[in-house]
Every structure is written in structure tokens, then in C-alpha cells.
């Protein structure tokens, strides 16, 4: 499946991916409103890790055998057998954070403000191409099928 891959060699750690991730997952879909006015404040589903020499932005790997899915106590976290996308049904998620405990990438974000649900990368299905990839200024994120 097509996934977002980070290339630590080119990541600047600028955090623009976070900005566009938040915007894409906001109600208003407006960058300024999403960050300055919207309540609850949308959360980014990426972790930007910065180091001395390299940086990278990491999000859900949509694993073949996702540990978050097998761990989920409610059945909210599911892997779509057709698309491979791992999604969380926020109506059913109770915020027990078992997925946070299970995900070996630390890719799941706790969204306490939005009613205590696990927030994670959905590859921006609603906008076609992941926003983090679209707006990365240095091609450090690629949306590719590498299998």
C-alpha cells in the first residue's frame, strides 16, 4: 500500500507537516482558525523528532499486523482489509490508551481535548494526498508504495 515515508537525510525539522496535519484534521479546515480559534484545538498526528544531524517526521506505519488493532479493547481500531488503512472509530474509542502502549513506533497521539480519543494518521483520505507530504518543503516525506 502507499504509505508516508520519512527521509531523515532531508527532514529539516521545521514542523510544517504538523501545521498542515492539524489543519487537515480540523473542523474549519482553515489554517489560522484551526490553530488560533477552533475548540478543541486539532492535534497533529505526526511526531517530529529532531536531532543533531538528522530529523524526521513519523506517523502511523499502517502495519501489516498492527499491534494497536490486536490490542484495542473496543474494536474501534481496525485495519481495512482492502485499503490497508488502519483507522480508529472515534465514536467507539474510549481513550484507554492500550494502543499507545502497543504501538512500537509511538505513532498514536492522545487527543484528550477531542473527548479522549486516540488520534492517528489516516493518510488524509479526505483530501487525496497526505497533507504532510504535499507541504514538506524539502521532499523529506514521500507517499509511495514500496512493497
Amino acid at each position, binding site marked *: 500500500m502507499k504509505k508516508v*515515508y*520519512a527521509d*531523515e537525510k532531508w527532514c529539516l525539522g521545521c514542523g510544517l507537516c504538523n501545521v498542515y496535519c492539524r489543519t487537515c484534521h480540523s473542523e474549519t479546515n482553515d489554517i489560522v482558525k484551526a490553530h488560533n480559534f477552533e475548540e478543541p484545538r486539532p492535534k497533529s498526528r505526526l*511526531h517530529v*523528532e*529532531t*536531532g543533531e544531524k*538528522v530529523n*524526521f517526521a*513519523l506517523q502511523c*506505519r499502517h*502495519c501489516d*499486523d498492527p*499491534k494497536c488493532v*490486536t*490490542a*484495542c*479493547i*473496543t*474494536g474501534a481500531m481496525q485495519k481495512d482489509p482492502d485499503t490497508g488503512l488502519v483507522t480508529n472509530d472515534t*465514536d*467507539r474509542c*474510549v*481513550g*484507554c*490508551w*492500550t*494502543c*499507545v*502502549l*502497543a*504501538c*512500537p*513506533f*509511538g*505513532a*498514536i*497521539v*492522545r487527543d*484528550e481535548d477531542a473527548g*479522549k480519543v486516540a488520534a492517528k494518521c489516516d493518510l488524509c483520505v479526505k483530501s487525496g494526498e497526505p497533507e504532510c507530504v504535499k507541504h514538506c518543503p524539502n521532499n523529506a516525506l514521500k507517499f509511495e508504495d*514500496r512493497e
Partner: protein
Amino acid sequence: MNYVIIGNSAAAVGCIEGLRKNDTKASITVISDEVHHVYSRPLISYYLAGTVTHENMVYRKADFYEKMNVKTMLGSKATAIDAKKKAVTLENGETVGYDKLLIATGSSAFVPPIDGLDKQNNVFTFLKYDSALDIEKLIDKDAKVVIVGAGLIGLKAAEGLAPVSGSVHVVEMADRVLPMILDEQGAAPVQAKMQENGVTFHLGITAQKVVDKDRVEKVVLKDGTEIACDVLVMAVGVRPNVAEAMAAGVKANRGILVDENMRTNVDDIYAAGDVTEAVDVTTGEHKIMALWPNAYLQGRAAAYDMCSAEHDFDGVFPMNAVGFFGLPIITAGVQDGEDMQVLSTGENGESKRFIVKDDILVGMILVGDVDRAGIYTYLMSEKIPLSTLTKKLTDDDFGLMAFEEEQRNERLSS
């Protein structure tokens, strides 16, 4: 091939999904003494608190059995297993033959002997949906709830019932809450958080007797304290439901002993979930690891072995995520032992405690700040030497950056 599963919870679902991955044709039968469509047991406290609806209690969608082509015998208790004839006998005398059997009968609440405690109609164990539905009928904003036991079940019951009842008292023999998974440093903020939300604790003491015969009206503690009671929840512990299995010659200590593929000592009989004692891969010891995700994984592992299919199963170890009134707690692995080094950090009610043995992370307790806990879990399951990491576990920005370049890139490109 004819597969039979006794039990209808996480391990059963793991087994069904595992079987169907490998075998779309075989017959699968699920036998359960509960009448409900498969539901999420940990959610019953949420249901009582009103945060999860009846519809959302289901662990898999309504068409799950149909889609998986599973025959269900719900509301039928399996009373005996004949390992020679390869058949399960039900309460109504009916027998169900099997080629491979999974015992996923879970556990039952252990109710300690307390003076006067009988089968009063306001005493519950908080393990099953039915008991939640019964409790629901007795709960109103004046109801007085007494919970015996401040373990996971007791505290989840307290959390669920506090917002919808008049008062919640928790009685615990140990001197702190969650004594099995938290140390004092971890337990204190949990207790504080629960007290803030109206839960009263009686720690380091036991319930001596209950009054009356038909209905428990009050609970009397050892020091004579009397607590008025409309609902009594007994949550001191659980015992695996092993009786039928043992009668069939399946070996068990407290739980059924299984190998890494969930096989019991009897051919074609597997066991998974809370009923088992499996190997804790972090310590190599057999133990009961009665936790939802483990049950699922074990059920699935059993399924793959039943089908003789290749399976990447790393085994399980104790790990748990739980929260009380918004204070999250994550624990994993062992909490104490010989030659262990403890690293800890934290302030303002948040704490992290890591237990390290021979350069390997073997346990952790995270209270409050649990973000990215799975990376630590990964270190534990993969037994990655901590000396190869470039950051300390207690660093605020601990993440994949701590891994060596090659390992990090392998992770990033997965």
C-alpha cells in the same frame, strides 16, 4: 476441519480471525454461557458511567459471526470435555464434537469468605455484562456503593459508578491502590485523582462482615467502621475457570499451562486468554497474564498452530493501559526483582519508572505522561540493549531518534 471454541471474548475472536485467515471453509463453533454478542468486557464500567452505549459495547460488528461463518451456541454452558472422544458436553446434555478445541473460558471472580456474605441480590462481581446490567437497575444518584478490592476491576468499577451514584467506598487490604501493578509513587496520584472525583478509600483494612441476609445493607470493617450499602461489588481477584479442562486431563496450576503455541498437554486442546498460564517472554516464567490484548494474541496464535500455519508470534508479557478520571497509567513487565536497576523521573503527579536488568528494559510504570509508551514496550519485547541507545529512557524527548542509525532507518522505512 471442525474447530470448537469454548468462550466468547477476546481470545475467541482472536482465534476466529486467525482461523479464517488460513481456512475459509472449516467449521467453527463458539460455545458460551453468556447470551451476548461478543462484547468488550473492559467497557462495562464505561457502560455504567454512561460513556459507552449498549450498541458500542460490541467488540466486533453485529454481522461478525455471519461474516466469519461461525456457528454460535450462546447461553450454553460447556460442562465436560471428553478428550478421547473429542467432544464437548453442554449443560443440556448435547455433545459437540471437535477436531481442535480452544478453551477460552476466562476467569471468575474470587469471593473471599466474609461473615454474612451469601447470595444476596445486591452483591456483584463486575466481570460480566449481565452483572453490569443488574447493577444498572439498582443505581441512582442516591445509591451507596461499596467496593471490596482496589485492583483494576475494583477501581474501574469505582470510576464507572462514582459519577452516577451517591457515594462510592473502596475497601482494600493493601496500603495503596492498585497494589499489584503500582508502587507507592505511582499509586498516590491515582488515589488522589479518584478522591477528587468523590471516591472514598479505606486502605489497609478488610471487610469483616456484611448485614443482612436478603440484601446487604451495610458493610462492617475490621475496625468497626460501618459503611451503608445499596450495591456491593466484590473485586478482590479472579480465578481462571479451569475445572472442566482439568477434569479432561488438561494440566493446570492456577491457570491452564500452555506452551508458546497455546497448546495444552492434551493433543488438539488449546487454551488462550485469562484461563491460561503462559510464558512471560520477558522473564521466561509461566504466569497468568489476564489482559485483553494478550488474550486476543494468544487466541490467534492458537488458531495459526491449529492450521499449522506460519505465524510471527512474539509471545506475550504483562502490559496494561488503564486510566482513572483522565489520569492514564501504563504498566508493563516486572515491577521488582533481584539485580534490577530503577530509573525514574517525573513531577506534578506524573511519573515514569523504568526497571532495567542487565542492560535490558524489563518493566515500566508510567503515570500521567504515557505518550509514545509503545516505544518502551518495543524495547522490552525486542530486548534491545539500552547501551545502544543514544538517549536516556527518562529523557523528555525519548523517541526513535534514540535508536542507532541502521535500526532507526529500518523502523522508518517499515
